């Protein structure tokens, strides 16, 4: 349950949105993409200063102890500006799992750094759940005198190139195991050429990399952490879908052809109205998922699955049509539309494909009958 009052939550969101309005323009986004880490570290530092990176971290470990709704509001604003920051992986997935399952000493060491913006954790993006990567990885763990060591390969790791830690999963005797592995010479990182320049992916090759095993992965806690992570990603996509939609509507109002704004043509109006249904549905789905999690609802898993595929699909549909509605101008690299579209396309398979969550949603509906 959130420790944040409604007023504080609104103030938090408004403050962040105002900050982004002046500090996260397209030029900054492109500079960030071209930089070493792929995102603007100044903005990341500012987010830490505003307390945003520790929302999911418990209060006694230097965070705010916020709920899924609080996280969703931040993620939505990040999505609107397409910020390629490691928010969901580090501040939601990793923070949630470390706070629940890491040894206390590790919690005390890492969580304040996460809140402070000085520690990035990467999470494997392939596979059908967060954070376990079952399709593409061949990891195995062994226990020796020195504790745990993990070897093998894992692909599709966002922010893998600059992360301080990697949170990776294996299957052991049919159940999931999670390891926290610090970046070291035993982890070699090679970049994968990614279609979305702002969503950089890495392949990790581990050779007896020292690892902290997350213990006592109770299904309930794991489920909670997973739902919060998926809901955060969905909120980010819902925000991004709305932003590119708004950009497109503004273009329809101001671009003139045939002596009239192109938004006055019914062909455009009808596309716009249809897309608005997608945008609003994504917002509603993301918000409901977060609220259901915070309320401890038995329906939370159903609404999280619904939000997962609805937001992924809406983002793709809206950003794809945004290019079409802009016409030639959005077929150029210098127009921002393709950056939204690329991110949207990357969002479909990452952390579980839309189709996977659609199936999960149907299963949840059946279970409720």
């Amino acid at each position, binding site marked *: 349950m959130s420790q944040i009052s409604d007023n504080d939550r609104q103030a938090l969101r408004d403050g962040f949105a105002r900050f982004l309005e002046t500090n996260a323009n397209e030029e900054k986004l492109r500079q960030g993409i071209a930089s070493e880490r792929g995102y603007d570290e100044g903005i990341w530092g500012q987010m830490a200063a505003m307390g945003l990176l520790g929302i999911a971290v418990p209060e006694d470990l230097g965070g705010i102890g916020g709920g899924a709704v609080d996280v969703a509001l931040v993620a939505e604003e990040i999505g609107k500006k397409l910020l390629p920051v490691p928010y969901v992986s580090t501040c939601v997935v990793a923070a949630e799992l470390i706070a629940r399952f890491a040894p206390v000493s590790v919690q005390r060491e890492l969580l304040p750094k996460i809140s402070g913006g000085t520690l990035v954790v990467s999470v494997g993006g392939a596979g059908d759940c967060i954070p376990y990567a079952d399709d593409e990885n061949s990891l195995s763990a062994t226990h020796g005198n020195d504790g745990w060591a993990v070897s093998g390969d894992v692909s599709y790791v966002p922010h893998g190139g600059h992360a301080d830690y990697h949170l990776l999963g294996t299957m052991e005797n049919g159940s999931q195991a999670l390891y926290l592995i610090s970046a070291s010479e035993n982890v070699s990182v090679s970049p994968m050429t990614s279609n979305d320049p702002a969503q950089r992916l890495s392949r990790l090759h581990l050779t007896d990399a020292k690892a902290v095993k997350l213990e006592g992965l109770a299904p309930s806690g794991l489920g909670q952490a997973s739902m919060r992570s998926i809901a955060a990603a969905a909120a980010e996509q819902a925000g991004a879908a709305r932003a590119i939609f708004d950009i497109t509507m503004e273009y329809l109002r101001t671009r003139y052809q045939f002596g009239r*704004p192109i*938004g006055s043509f019914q062909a*455009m*109006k009808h596309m716009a109205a249809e897309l608005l249904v997608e945008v609003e*549905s994504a917002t*509603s789905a993301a918000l409901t998922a977060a609220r259901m999690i915070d309320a401890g609802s038995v329906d939370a898993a159903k609404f999280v699955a619904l939000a997962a595929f*609805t937001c992924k699909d809406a983002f793709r549909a809206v950003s794809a049509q945004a290019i079409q509605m802009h016409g030639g101008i959005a077929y150029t690299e210098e127009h921002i539309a393709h950056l939204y579209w690329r991110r949207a396309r990357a969002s479909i398979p990452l952390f579980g494909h839309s189709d996977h969550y659609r199936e999960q949603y149907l299963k949840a*509906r059946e279970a409720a009958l």
Partner: protein
Amino acid sequence: MTICDRNSSPEEIENAVDTWLDAHWDSDRRCAKGDSSYDEATWLKTVFEAGFCVPTWPTEWFGLGLRQKQARIIEKAFAKCKAPGHSRDRFHLGAITVFKVGSDELKRAMLPTLLTGPICCLLYSEPNAGSDLAGVRTKAIPDGDEFVITGQKIWTSNAQEAEYGMLLSRTDWDVPKHRGITFFLFPMKQDGVEVKPINQITGESEFNEVFITEARVPASHIIGNLNEGWTSFQTAIAYERLIMGQGITERQGKSKADSEPQLIRLARKYDKYDDPAVRQKIAQALAYRELNNLNMERAKEEILKNGSSSLMSLGKLAMSRIQHGEAAIATDLMGNEALLDGEESLDAANVNFDAAKAYMNSIGGGTDQIQKNIIAERVLNLPKGPDLDRNTAFRDVKSS
């Protein structure tokens, strides 16, 4: 006597309405306590006098001054024991429109009659004014303190039962089309009003044509002002679309939240439920319905907070995709059996009916295409297209 008000707690309201229903309604016989059979007029009067017809309206206008949330408690209590007459502030379009835009005189004179009678019929569309509704040609000519009406209306439901209809008519032919319209509360039970049922593609005949020949309506029955009917009408049509967005036009029991969705039932019956492609389609169809519900819930929250919500205008459009989509999936699930109808296959009869009935949502109350224009212009602020007849005197406007 007011039995609950704005300050009552949910429990107090529930108690008050349950106690009242216990005292007045016989759930077993479905009629007023002590009566042997249901008498609509008397029962509606009883509900009206208790304020339960229109609980969200102020006490001086026959309501209880309750909030929406409080009113839902009353609605639930009535629905539970199947007592009619509740929620007329949500579903009685005629009464709602008179309440929202009528003069105090009209409200005082007519609201008690409307609220205790059958719902009003809607005399809007004409054979030559469908999507372009502002092109109505039904004439209203002043004659003393009355108007004489002549014209033809179409797509009117409940025309046989209705005692009153909301009528769009032309009162000034020398100004552009939107500025010469007057909206009347028109008495149906009079000479010069002829009702003829339409046979629909669903096999039903819920709509009618209404032929009006020199029928009369008092000038005091103008809803709003003379020649400003188009403005008054906006309130009525907005409520109608809002109601349609909640799936009111669907077959009863088709999509109850707690029962197995029809698509799952059919997929199981026709042994296709394990097909992953089928499962994807069904999941998406169920999702569209759930998402529309979530959007409407959000709309209600926004209305409670800000007094209005642009989300409301999306419901009807979303419902079209839901209904046409579900009917198509259901048809595919049934294979050859979808070729049948009637007693030969009840499933096919239902699915074929739903496939046809979906047009009720996507055409009725304004086609999806008109609705998209409205969303684009009013919600998204996209510029209006050129309107060739906007500044032309109506008598010079071309028509087919």
